[in-house]
């Protein structure tokens, strides 16, 4: 089978925060149209990698190419082709959902009628129609994720970067988000998302990369990485987390409850 062109190419990305090397030479290639999962324990460098790939955090070294455009050489052109949903959902939350989408659309120089039309579609699909006139500050965490997802999809990007999109989201909202993302990839879009939930990654992704201590320790098609086992087992083996509790914490059983 012919290898698809890369939608995202990360080469030797490196980032240091003071004494901590957060990302240590990450190389990744994400084929166009794929559903790509980035997994790793806390502090593995997932968020830092995604931020550098999306032009939100300048790398110390390395390059990030999205949809054929070097993110750090031509950030405006690259960002026009990507949508971003960061983990830390700081939004202009005193705007209503509708206003937030209008704001996002105008930042991207979209025509107002197009923004209005797409806003209606997105709010309907994401189940936010009744909340369009409510300030985002009054949204639940799941609603915030969904409105941020709507904002990231509004300009019909080629590549979508999502940092922990399913965290703190109820099952109904999670299903809605999954369906929207599957619709996006079936239309040729590429999704790169990070997650702690291995079942979600196994179910949604066709490719996966496991990050540990700022390095890619495994990457490729999900089946190739799993090698017949569950992704969680492979993950735990690669990041070196064994039986850490062992015989300790015996005092927990003496709890008076």
């Amino acid at each position, binding site marked *: 089978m012919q290898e698809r062109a890369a939608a995202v190419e990360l080469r030797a990305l490196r980032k240091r925060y003071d004494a901590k090397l957060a990302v240590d030479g990450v190389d990744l290639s994400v084929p166009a149209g794929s559903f790509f999962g980035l997994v790793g324990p806390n502090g593995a460098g997932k968020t830092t990698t995604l931020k550098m790939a*999306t032009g*939100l*955090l300048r790398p110390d070294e390395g390059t990030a190419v999205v949809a054929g455009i070097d993110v750090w050489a031509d950030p405006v052109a690259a960002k026009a082709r990507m949508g971003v949903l960061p983990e830390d959902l*700081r*939004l202009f939350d005193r705007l209503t959902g509708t206003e937030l989408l209008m704001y*996002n659309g105008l930042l991207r*120089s979209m025509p107002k009628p197009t923004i209005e039309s797409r806003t209606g579609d997105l709010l309907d699909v994401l189940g936010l129609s009744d*909340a369009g006139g*409510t300030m985002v*500050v009054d949204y639940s965490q799941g609603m915030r994720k969904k409105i941020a997802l709507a904002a990231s999809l509004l300009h019909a990007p080629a590549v979508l970067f999502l940092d922990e999109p399913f965290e703190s989201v109820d099952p109904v909202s999670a299903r809605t988000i999954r369906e929207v993302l599957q619709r996006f990839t079936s239309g040729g879009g590429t999704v790169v998302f990070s997650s702690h939930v291995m079942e979600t990654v196994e179910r949604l992704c066709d490719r996966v990369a496991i990050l540990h201590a700022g390095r890619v320790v495994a990457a490729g098609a999900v089946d190739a990485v799993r090698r017949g086992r569950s992704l969680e087992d492979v993950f735990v083996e690669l990041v070196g987390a064994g039986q850490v509790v062992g015989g300790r914490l015996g005092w927990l059983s003496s709890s008076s409850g």
Partner: protein
Amino acid sequence: MALVLVRLKLTLLRHGIAASGTRGVVGAVLAALAAVGTGVTAGLLLLFLRAMRPGDATDALAAAYAIVLVVWVFGPIVAAGSEGTLEPDRLALFPLGIGRLMPGLLLAALLGFGGVATVLVLAGSVAGMAPASPLVAVTVAAAALELCICVTAGRLVATLVSAAARTRRWRDLALLLGPVVALGLNVALQVVVRQVDPRAADFRTTRTYAVVRTLTRVLPSGPPAMAIGFAREGNVVAALLALAAGGGVLFVGIDLWHAALQRVLTSGGGSGAAPPGRRGADLFPAALRFLPRTRVGAVAAKELRLTWRDPRQRAAFFGVVFASVVPLLSLRVLGSTDPHSVLFAAMPAYVVGSTATNLYGFDGAALWTNVAAGDDARRDLLGKCVARALLAVPLVTVALVGLVARTHAPGEIVPTIGLAVAALGVGLGAGTVASVVAPFPVSDTRSNVFSSGNAGQGLSAALPSLGVLAAGAVVLGPVVAALVALRDPVARAALGVAGAAAGAIVFIVGFGIAVRRSAPRQPELLDALGPRRTA
């Protein structure tokens, strides 16, 4: 337990300062100097009580103690300061009895620059009023009682506000308490000051004096002051009775605080359900329809929307209005018929411009929205400047119309508008540069209505504004002086136009510098505004 809470408070303060880096250290040093300076100055002034007649000295002491009480009660709310370090809500999950918590919370409240300043003031009052007799013990006890009453009252109000601020709407409202209290105190002060007529034989015979005298005695801070006054006069029984009354006030205060704490620690927060939204909510409401549907227009509309909806920005805007209006009122400009008084209508433009020194501060980490949508520092900054200008226009217009109507001097319109444009241009020009050179996030207050999120950096955060205010005064001073000195209307109008042109040039130059500096550094700007930077 008390020592644990004291150590916790010290640790929180230390980490808050450390997290803010150099700015935090500078702010902490400045705050310490301000507190010690204020305490020493007030303490030294109180030494003069010794030279006053006993009755007058007691009146002055009661007024001083009332001021200390007001600062303790409203200070944390007005300044959104360190009260958040030990907000009772945060201790609700620990199995701590209220009786164990209260001494620790009281002691912790005393720690800090406010406590140091208060002790210095009280020491000055003791030195200024203590009699040379055993009754000096009453004086010391009363001063200590005053300290306890102030701290308890401060904690009581903090707890009540904390209880009220369980829901977003109440929290928003609580944030407005600061400017409202500040405005109320200022108006009250002006009313008192205006009663002081230097030609009057004796201010003490006025009704205002009688009202203030009564008020300062019936406040919780009154009994300790009266006990000290009676002790100085040698009236043992009255001194002890006043001291006992003070003790009663303290008892009632502690009881009320206990009840408030009980409520805060045992009742849950508000519902997380989203209230129904308003249909047809639009980024461009009717008043902003004229803005272009572009990135500049969107940023300007968002800024103006949030100026009203975001309680932090609303409070800041009230501060701007307040700072604009106070000079008009206190200088009795409105009562003047001098045509030159119309020039004061430019004051709002000066204040609006000079406070634009942290244009990205309220965006904070939400600025990723703009950065992710394509770096465009020029349009983002321009949108913010347009919003600022649009805030100044109605304020200047109202002041101008009012003053021209009062003075019947339409010839002042052109010079005044020119001066306003100059003031706005200078302020925004310098402000945009400061905004990209030293940006800092203004913490949101979703979880804590008392926390500014910038522990120890309140003063240093204000430095850029003070700098731009001073620079603006230096640049605009000669223009104002010339406008006042010149009599020829044509020359004055020409000077106004020239001033406007100069302001526009300063704006263009400053804006250009800010854009050149920030355009290639949008990720760094975002990093400076990120959550890691907040305390």
